[in-house]
């Protein structure tokens, strides 16, 4: 059990390291170093940077040294919580990101809860009533959920919301609360706006999960112990829910590790369409403006959050599945 946790932890750290390298590459990719970009930025606003100043900046960031030293310096500052400054906003990156990261987490979390909430009962129903009319309907809707890209779904819903109900769907707050400080009223307002983007985000993952749940449960239902339970006169509800569903739930929990990166990715895209105050629009803007510290930090933080989420889901999985606790399972 300890070995399992340690292995997962090592893998998580490895992933975070890989993400940090990729992030560093992204920051480095635009032509010229960021001091050049910074100087251009400053001279655009009228101030002149002296050569010595530029040189001092270069030394500070270690730009005159080999790439791996630069990476080392950068990562040390990141670990200390200094992500650099956003050139476009002229403020520390952490300040620019602010609440938006939490909004991303809130939406992703809500989407996963909804995914589970929809997929579980439908998966069970589709397996128990295999080849029924409703099973076909759910299978079809599931396929559509997989086939329609998130952003397209958001776009279509936004269009029909506008056309049929004259609603401007978008944002996470009403205009009264947009800039207001946090209060219970604002939280309630968020709760009212959250379901739509969360459902859109949840739909694609839901379809996959329904299919997994259905297939797993179908396998379980064919097992002799279910027949025994029925032969013993167990009520159908209990015969299904007591053991087969629990056994089928195992892989269900393990998919959360794949679901999370997927949902986080999706949240970026639908935030752009529905103009939600998550890191999505900020990331796009930063990338288009080549504000690389901001963009890199967002990619890094999203990656780290996903890894942490996956790690937590591994722990949950361990809690659910005795085979993993006993070290019998991968």
């Amino acid at each position, binding site marked *: 059990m300890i070995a399992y946790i340690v292995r997962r932890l090592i*893998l998580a750290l*490895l*992933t975070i390291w*890989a*993400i940090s390298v*990729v*992030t560093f590459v*992204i920051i480095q*990719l*635009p*032509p010229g170093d960021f001091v050049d970009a910074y100087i251009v930025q400053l001279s655009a606003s009228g101030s002149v940077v002296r050569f010595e100043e530029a040189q001092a900046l270069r030394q500070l960031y270690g730009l005159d040294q080999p790439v791996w030293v630069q990476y080392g310096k950068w990562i040390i500052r990141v670990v200390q919580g200094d992500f650099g400054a956003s050139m476009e906003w002229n403020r520390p990156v952490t300040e620019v990101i602010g609440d938006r990261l939490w909004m991303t987490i809130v939406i992703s979390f809500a989407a996963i809860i909804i995914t589970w909430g929809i997929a579980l009962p439908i998966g069970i129903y589709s397996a128990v009533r295999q080849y029924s009319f409703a099973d076909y309907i759910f299978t079809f809707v599931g*396929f*559509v959920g*997989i*086939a*329609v*890209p*998130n*952003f*397209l779904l958001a*776009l*279509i819903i*936004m*269009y029909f919301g*506008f*056309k049929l109900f004259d609603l*401007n769907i*978008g944002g996470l707050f009403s205009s009264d609360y947009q800039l207001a400080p946090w209060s219970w009223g604002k939280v309630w307002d968020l709760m009212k706006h959250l379901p739509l983007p969360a459902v859109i985000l949840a739909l694609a993952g839901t379809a996959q999960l329904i299919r997994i749940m259905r297939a797993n449960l179908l396998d379980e239902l064919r097992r002799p112990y279910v027949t025994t339970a029925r032969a013993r006169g167990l009520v159908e509800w209990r015969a299904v829910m007591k053991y087969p569903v629990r056994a089928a739930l195992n892989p269900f929990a393990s998919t959360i*590790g*794949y679901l*999370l*990166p*997927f949902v*986080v*990715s*999706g949240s*970026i*895209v639908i935030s*752009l*369409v529905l103009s939600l105050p998550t890191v999505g629009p900020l*990331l*796009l803007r930063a*990338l*288009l403006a*080549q504000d690389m510290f901001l*963009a*890199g930090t*967002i*990619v890094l933080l*999203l*990656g780290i959050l*996903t*890894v942490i989420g*996956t790690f937590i889901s591994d722990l949950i999985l361990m809690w659910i599945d005795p085979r993993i606790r006993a070290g019998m399972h991968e």
Partner: protein
Amino acid sequence: MSGAVADQAVPLVTAAEEKIAIASQLQLTWWRLRRHRLAVASGVLVILFYLVAVFADFLAITSPHATNSARSYIPPQTIHWFDEDGSFKPHVYALKGRRDMRTFKLVYAPDPSDKRYLAWFVEGYGYELFGLIATKRHLLGIDRGVPEDALFLLGTDQLGRDVWSRLMLATRTSLTIGLVGVALSLFLGVLLGGISGLYGGAIDTVIQRIIEVLRSIPTIPLWMGLAAALPNDWSVIQVYMAITVIISLIGWTELARVVRGRFLALREEDFVTAAELAGASRLRIIFRHMVPSFMSHIIAAISLALPAMIISETTLSFLGLGLRPPAISWGVLLQDAQDIQALALAPWLLVVAVPVIVVILAFNFLGDGLRDAADPYG
């Protein structure tokens, strides 16, 4: 006596069985797939879409790049199939521009008195069929008229370009980017998955960990970062190739997983042991004996990887980080439909969503059918 009857009966049974016994894995898969109607229908649909990609220019009506500011946001024209006398003569009404005296905007309205008849194989803008044959023929157009004149089956965009023609060329770009991307992923997947499954041990562990790491990174922010770093002065072709590489760098993991799984399963099979004992070389065992028997699995994995590639490209281009105009792809076209103002003004721009959804659905059904057919026990 009974022995003689059995002797007569045996050949009858074996005729069918022998066919199965000597059939290759691909043939077996094909026979099983044929019973899966939805998958076959989807396969036909996919082929049709690729035909559109091949004949995109031929199916286009006006040059997809020809702008005309006076014709921005013209709604799709209705085709009238019959003339007044009841004869079958498909035509559209010509568009008459009229200045709205209140808004001073040019408003187009169909003019029923001025008919434009449709014709097959008309001359239009020049292009090269298959990139070789220079021609001006197009499938559909206005009979004896300037093509730009009046045929907008799906309306026009803000710059007055014909949405139908653009859609045809976008289909070509989006479908081929999927193919190239999958080819790259396939190469990486088969190579790394094969090594992983064949050698096992430490190499396998390392490759499996790499795959796990790649799969736990949210892809969209990563793609966005990489795609945004492409230099602005790159040509359309360069951007196209770079985007394909970026997408396939992440997309290979699933294919590698499939290949590795099959290698591990087949390594223990009797026929592989038999080949080894017969003294076949390692390469011969892999390519002559192992690869053919999991070919169908690879095909199934490909047909499930293709739609994912297409979605990726469409999403990136939609965000303005993938292909950029003047390149035309589904994502680029959907970019025009991004904000609610444009949609309210020209809802027909959203028509691009239809081929995207249909193709991805078709690929998924086909891939599912193929996967079932490839693996009767899976």
